[in-house]
């Protein structure tokens, strides 16, 4: 058995899971490094929970192998894997006090009473539950129950902590607070964290890497800025946040990048256009686009008309339509928006070449 307190390194190779004829997970390969904070992100039904359950040992994969620190644990029962797990809805023991809930994994491991007392006390302090030790879960608020679940899953120093949408039942303020607290716990314990969410901003804010799921397939794995700025496909691009798409024609490779025609204007692109055949989609995040009153020679840009605006406080969101009818939204400083709207709504839309990326035309 592994030593407690040491972060685990997990390798999933070719994991597949079928429920009858339904394919919940398909050929999933993922390496999770020691002490990493990996987030599984995807829409409802994409297989995130199923994968987490396979990691925990509650669900047996139909194909594939699972390794922890180099040992094959695919057939090892859940109680011997001893991954810490925080369930959606907490799953606390309702008949046990906060203290007894947290002590449970230590009692199961037959630790001495003195040791249990010391570690439970430490954990209660660490998650900020001092004064609540004798209460039953039903007597706690949602946020406090969440802390008990975290404490219970961490007290036996598991190599990996699995969290299934732990904050989905909390209100926004508490959510932010718990996210910060979890980041702190991750640093303090150094344990490997695997975290499930379908909230993209939560995923980007917390993780060292994000794994994006859809329909049981792993679409892309990468650091938050990587998946946000260089998404592998249209689904990832759209799932991670708002994105503008402009149709391109005549895409051709050129020195350090590519060139293309966007609404009959020549534009330049960074990154390779390999595998793209003439037509493609140019994708750019709204915050990387800006507007000007007229074209600057040598810079990417097209003409557009402002059709509406939304005042956001820190900025204004402008909705634009290009000459050929593509809809685009841009986030600009408030006074820029006012000027644009005062100028007969006709604007020049520009973006830096390195902030746009190519997606294949049509489909994914």
């Amino acid at each position, binding site marked *: 058995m592994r030593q407690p307190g040491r972060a685990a390194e997990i390798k999933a190779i070719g994991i597949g899971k079928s429920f009858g004829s339904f394919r919940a997970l398909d050929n999933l390969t993922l390496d999770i490094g020691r002490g990493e904070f990996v987030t599984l992100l995807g829409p409802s039904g994409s297989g995130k929970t199923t994968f987490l359950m396979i990691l*925990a*040992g*509650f669900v047996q994969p139909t194909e594939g192998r699972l390794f922890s620190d180099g040992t094959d644990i695919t057939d090892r*029962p*859940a*109680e*011997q*894997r*001893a*991954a*810490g*797990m925080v*369930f*959606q*809805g907490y*799953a*606390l*023991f*309702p*008949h046990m006090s906060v203290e007894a809930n947290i002590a*449970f*994994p230590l009692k*199961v*491991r037959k630790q001495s009473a003195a040791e249990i007392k010391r570690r439970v006390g430490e954990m209660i302090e660490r998650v900020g539950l001092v004064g609540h030790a004798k209460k039953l879960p039903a007597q706690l608020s949602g946020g406090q129950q969440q802390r008990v679940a975290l404490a*219970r*899953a961490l007290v*036996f120093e598991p190599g990996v902590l699995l969290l299934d949408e732990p904050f989905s039942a909390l209100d926004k303020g508490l959510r932010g607070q718990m996210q910060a607290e979890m980041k702190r716990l991750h640093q303090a314990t150094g344990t490997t964290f695997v975290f499930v969410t379908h909230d993209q901003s939560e995923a980007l804010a917390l993780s060292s890497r994000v794994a994006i799921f859809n329909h049981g397939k792993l679409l892309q794995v990468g650091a938050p800025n990587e998946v946000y700025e260089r998404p592998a496909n249209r689904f990832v691009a759209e799932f991670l946040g708002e994105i503008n798409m402009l149709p391109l024609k005549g895409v051709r490779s050129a020195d350090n990048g590519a060139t293309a025609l966007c609404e009959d204007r020549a534009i330049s692109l960074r990154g390779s256009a390999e595998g793209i055949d003439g037509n493609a989609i140019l994708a750019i995040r709204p915050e990387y686009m800006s507007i000007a009153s007229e074209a600057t020679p040598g810079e990417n840009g097209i003409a557009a008309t402002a059709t509406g605006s939304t005042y956001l406080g820190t900025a204004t969101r402008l909705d634009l339509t290009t000459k050929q009818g593509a809809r685009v939204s841009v986030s600009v400083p408030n006074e820029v928006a006012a000027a644009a709207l005062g100028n007969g709504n006709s604007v020049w839309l520009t973006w830096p070449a390195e902030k746009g990326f190519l997606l294949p035309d049509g489909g994914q």
Partner: protein
Amino acid sequence: MKGYLSDRMGAALLMAPLLLFLALAYAWPFLGVVKWSFTLPTPGVGQYEALLTDDLVQSVFIRTLRIAAIVTLVSVAAAYAITVVWVRGTPTQRLVAEFCILVPFWISVLTRAFGWVALLSNRGLINSWLQAVGFISEPLALVRNEFGVIVGMTHFLIPFAVFPLASAMRALDDRVLLAARGLGSSRMRTFWSVFVPMTRSGIIGAAMIVFVFSLGFFVTPAILGGGRSVMVAELIYLRIFQSPDWGLGAAISVVLVLFVGALMALLFRYVRPRQLI
């Protein structure tokens, strides 16, 4: 809490016709019984004094409590095992368990009591088989005694214990059991330290129902006890229809009803009525 209260109001309204029927069919005649207990054969509390001194009455009460306690213990334990299979087993196991739970309801209590006599009597199936195989030379006394009564009553009452247990088990969140396993607890340990405590309200409900039913049992003890293990209900019958000593029979009835009432009050302090269904 608020929802629970308004639920209760709604439930009370729905139950009103039934409550009225129960009042007319049971409460009214029972008042007559109370009256007898204070007036027959002479007015006063003489019958209740007799209860306290009558050795037979006391031994019957003690036997009734003892049998009820044993039957409760055995029925609830057996029902618990069946219910676990019924609620958490594979589809086939569930079907078999459901069959075992429902079939007894289709056979009358009288038929079942005589069925047990046929099985347990000196020339019954069990004794003949044991003798044929050579395990025993003399037949075992399996019937016309407390053992027979306990067997028959347990068999009758197990299905009644199943329902409160099943509702408690169904209410249990599967993830809590998974959580226990994930935290390192074996199947056995998870069963004893999480599953069983979490179904406590069902166990209390089942035990109370079985115990209260047992106290008033008549047919099964009368047949399987063969007049030798008389329980309270049979004693009341004997006092009223055979002795006849209506006053004493009525007084025993009143004591029994009060005792059962007190038990029910205790039950509903621990378990909400809806948890019993």
